[in-house]
């Protein structure tokens, strides 16, 4: 534990104000319980997500850069983004601005036109919520704070595809002991193990959830998610822990759709890692938004003494 990240700027992004609200609620509650200070960016905008990036990648770079500029103006050198899509896009913007002159020129032009300071690469570090807890508190720090151990809870940790790809926009990863791995990420595993959970070996932890297919080809998305769910069950998991609102919602929705459309019922529960850590620290299920999840996990949590 480095003691870094005790006070960071917070970029929730659009999803955490909508379908991922439970992630927003539980991230804030977890930060408060751990006495970590997160300050939401003022007047933040969309990171450019998938839609803008596919139409005009440089416009997406500008949109993400504007958020980094706001963080800098607010006096922060670190911004924490819990959503994989936002995290990825802010990292990508940082990479583009450091390596691509054309991106710098577009950013300069649009920033001037919008009337705000132009963000320059290297001023603000983007981290994920996993980096935040891992570095600010660490496993040993968590162990001393656990009130309701997750002991007996078998968890498959699912990171999704955007937390580690493409590798070159995450230069801090794959740097040996203590750093995150892009081929076998483990930060979520480490934190939940520190809270007492039993992590199962899960071979699809970075596999595609079919998120981009959800509207254009729902059946493929449902089949991909069903495979994620059945594989987690085959690995012995009671719960799939998530750290991305898009993956989380996709798993929940397609779990229900798989039963309705394909007659395939699965019983593995889906919870954000922030909800699990929050309950391990003694926060109520309601405080971390379990009631906002589509996936019904309260019976399991009650059985395990977490509710």
């Amino acid at each position: 534990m480095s003691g870094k990240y005790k006070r960071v700027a917070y970029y929730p992004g659009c999803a955490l104000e909508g379908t991922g609200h439970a992630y927003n609620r539980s991230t804030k509650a977890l930060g408060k319980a751990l006495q970590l200070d997160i300050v939401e960016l003022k007047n933040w905008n969309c990171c450019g997500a998938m839609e803008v990036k596919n139409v005009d990648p440089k416009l997406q770079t500008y949109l993400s850069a504007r958020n980094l500029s706001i963080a800098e103006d607010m006096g922060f050198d670190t911004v924490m983004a819990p959503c994989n899509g936002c995290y990825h896009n802010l990292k990508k913007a940082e990479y583009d601005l450091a390596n691509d002159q054309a991106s710098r020129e577009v950013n300069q032009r649009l920033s001037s036109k919008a009337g705000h300071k132009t963000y320059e690469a290297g001023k603000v570090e983007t981290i994920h919520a996993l980096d935040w807890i891992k570095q600010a508190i660490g496993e040993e720090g968590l162990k001393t704070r656990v009130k309701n151990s997750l002991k007996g809870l078998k968890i498959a940790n699912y990171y999704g595809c955007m937390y580690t790809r493409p590798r070159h926009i995450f230069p801090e990863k794959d740097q040996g002991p203590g750093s995150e791995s892009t081929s076998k990420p483990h930060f979520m595993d480490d934190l939940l193990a520190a809270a007492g959970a039993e992590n199962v070996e899960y071979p699809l932890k970075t596999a595609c959830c079919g998120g981009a297919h959800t509207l254009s080809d729902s059946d493929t998305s449902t089949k991909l998610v069903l495979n994620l769910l059945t594989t987690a069950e085959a690995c012995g998991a009671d719960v799939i822990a998530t750290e991305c609102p898009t993956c989380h919602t996709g798993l929940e929705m397609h779990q229900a759709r798989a039963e309705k459309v394909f007659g395939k019922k699965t019983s593995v529960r889906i919870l954000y890692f922030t909800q699990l850590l929050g309950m391990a620290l003694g926060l109520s299920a309601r405080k971390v938004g379990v009631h906002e999840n589509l996936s019904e996990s309260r019976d399991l949590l009650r059985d395990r003494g977490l509710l």
Partner: protein
Amino acid sequence: MAVTIRRRDESTPAERLDAIIALPDAALVAAATDLAGELLAIGEAALTSWLAAKGATPTKAEVEGFRLLALHRQGARGDPSFNACRETCRELAYHYNCVRQASDEAEAARRIRLGAMVARHLVLFVDGKLEIAGLGEFCCSSRPLRLRDAATGQS
């Protein structure tokens, strides 16, 4: 463009993988080495079909002893790409090794079943790419960077 790969027995790879997953442990153990090889072959066939649909000649080379990994490396270049299945391919190769070195029968059966689930994800992912090709980009995560990498010759 929808391409469905059919096997000689007329089952699709996904159907064959479902059948392998449903086999009892004893049947998995009895044919462990053959099944491990079949899982790899199904993965290779999926990537080969995708490369062919893209107009490329699938490589016969191997990376780290696996043609599957060489095919992935080939397909990860350019646009569209299946860069996003890198770990899925590596997990499949890993499970192949685990089956061949399993210390007991239960472990061998478990590894074949998990390997089949990994292969099923690869098949679904690549089939999805084939079906969605006409609709544009499938994997949303890294298109701009891949375009630039393709232009500058980086992998």
